[in-house]
């Protein structure tokens, strides 16, 4: 692992996945509750907790509320989550009382495909009955997307992932546009932020269509447009994401290393 230079001047070497994870982590506010799955969302949430958001409450669908893992969990059933949690409840309780009860601020979701309205596919590529690729399926995502106060989607951007039309709707974002969430009885605000390896997108407040609101360092608007399967709208106030700081990179790399080798060395600063 390369040691980053100590000054966070935006010229540090970092990968696009690291930029994506850091950008997702920064969007998680301190003291909020966050419903996280394993993988990049869990990495981002733990990075946030280890940096600017020490009071972020991590809720995993396995029933661990307020988990404070000292290493990245290998799965949502990792004993590390149960042992460090404020409370461990059953799976029915986590979905009914905590998620559906409207108590979670941010739900973090990944996907294999996303469309312009932030709808997500995690089920199948191709036809459902004779699929090209059978993916794992919905898991907790439909109701995380429905009931969390807001949703953050994290995925790599390409024409394979940013598609004009999903092969399967696993999780509803804004459906086919304004008013659909209300018509469907979805209580949360939906995907208010999408973080990719190229930049960040937010829904237009009127049309609900995703709009590119920032690009990561070194990424152009053309890069982002080329990696999108529909005519990507760009915000008039497009910004550039600040590069990862040395501290962010150091903590992130230690976190990721902790998963590989089981080291328990990432105590959060609290």
């Amino acid at each position, binding site marked *: 692992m390369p040691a980053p230079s100590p000054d966070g001047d935006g010229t540090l070497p970092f990968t696009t996945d690291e930029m994506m994870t850091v950008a997702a982590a920064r969007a998680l506010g301190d003291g909020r509750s966050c419903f996280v799955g*394993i*993988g990049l969302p869990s990495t981002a949430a733990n990075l946030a907790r280890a940096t600017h958001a020490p009071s972020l409450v991590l809720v995993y*669908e*396995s*029933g*661990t509320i307020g988990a404070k893992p000292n290493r990245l969990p*290998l*799965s*949502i*059933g*990792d*004993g590390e*989550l*149960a042992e460090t949690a404020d409370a*461990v409840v*059953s*799976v*029915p309780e986590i*979905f*009914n009382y905590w*998620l*559906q009860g409207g108590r979670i601020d941010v739900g973090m979701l990944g996907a294999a495909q996303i469309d312009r309205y932030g709808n997500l596919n995690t*089920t199948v590529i191709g036809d*459902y009955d*004779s*699929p*090209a*690729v*059978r*993916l*794992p*399926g*919905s*898991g*907790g*995502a*439909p*109701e995380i997307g*429905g*009931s969390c106060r807001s949703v953050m989607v994290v995925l790599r951007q390409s024409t394979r992932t940013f598609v004009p039309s999903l092969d*399967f*709707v*696993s*999780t*509803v974002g804004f*459906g086919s546009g304004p008013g*659909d969430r209300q018509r*469907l*009885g*979805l*209580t949360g605000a939906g995907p208010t932020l999408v973080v990719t390896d190229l930049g960040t997108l937010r829904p237009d407040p009127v049309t609900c269509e995703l709009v590119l609101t920032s690009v990561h360092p070194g990424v152009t608007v053309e890069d982002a447009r080329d990696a999108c399967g529909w005519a990507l709208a760009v915000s008039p106030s497009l910004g550039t994401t600040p590069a990862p700081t040395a501290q962010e990179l150091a903590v992130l790399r230690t976190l990721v290393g902790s998963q590989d080798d089981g080291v328990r060395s990432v105590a959060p600063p609290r």
Partner: protein
Amino acid sequence: MSTTALRPLADAVSELVSDGDCVSLEGFTHLIPFAAAHEVIRQGRRDLTLVRLTPDLVYDQLIGAGCARRLVFSWAGNPGVGSLHRFRDAVEHGWPAPLELEEHSHAGLTNAYVAGASGLPFAVLRGYAGTGLDGRTGTAVATVTCPFTGERLTAVRAVRPDVAVIHAQHADRSGNVALWGITGVQKEAVLAARRSLVTVEEVVDELRPGPGAVVLPSWVVSAVSLVPGGCHPSYAAGYSERDNQFYERWDAISRSRERFTAWIDEHVLAMAPS
């Protein structure tokens, strides 16, 4: 009500699991009853309907070994690693046999267990709305109107497996069971099922349930079998960590039909019953 006797796993599986049964092996990434699944494979069960939130390696093995006709599930992946290749091969290519799917969300299938445990024909939730799952749950999801507010909500049909199988840390000599850590939907699966089998790490003189423990009295459990390590390679809180290298190795083992079959022959069929 019957008092449970401890009995050998092979006897319990033979008595409780028949061809064509609806079987639920539960354990939410923790305490997954692998040893019992291997016994089902050894006994050559066929045409099972397998119910489980997270099929995981355990159903990849049962599906690849030809035990399953139908799968009721909500997330079929190798957690933290990738795809379930035997599941995918069955769905994508019908090997070793076509696999019917009834596909849910976690919240929906969880509430189907809750309804089953509660003696109700259905449960109500906010879920599925607007997703493609609507047409993929067989006849298990419908809408229901709130008689007070007029709001339309989702109804999910109760799951009532013929048999539920779980792994727990402790049983006492009377067959009372305690499990702890992440307890998932195991209580609901056992209480929703007509019959149930619990494999345990240890038989103790007295249950001393710790924080968050689920206790199942002997009179709601059909059989208890002592099978230390019976949930390997998954976790058993207080006993063993997840064997993550096995989860990673499974990706390669399960990619090829030949290598999978050789693995099942060597590690399941050739093994003596637990």
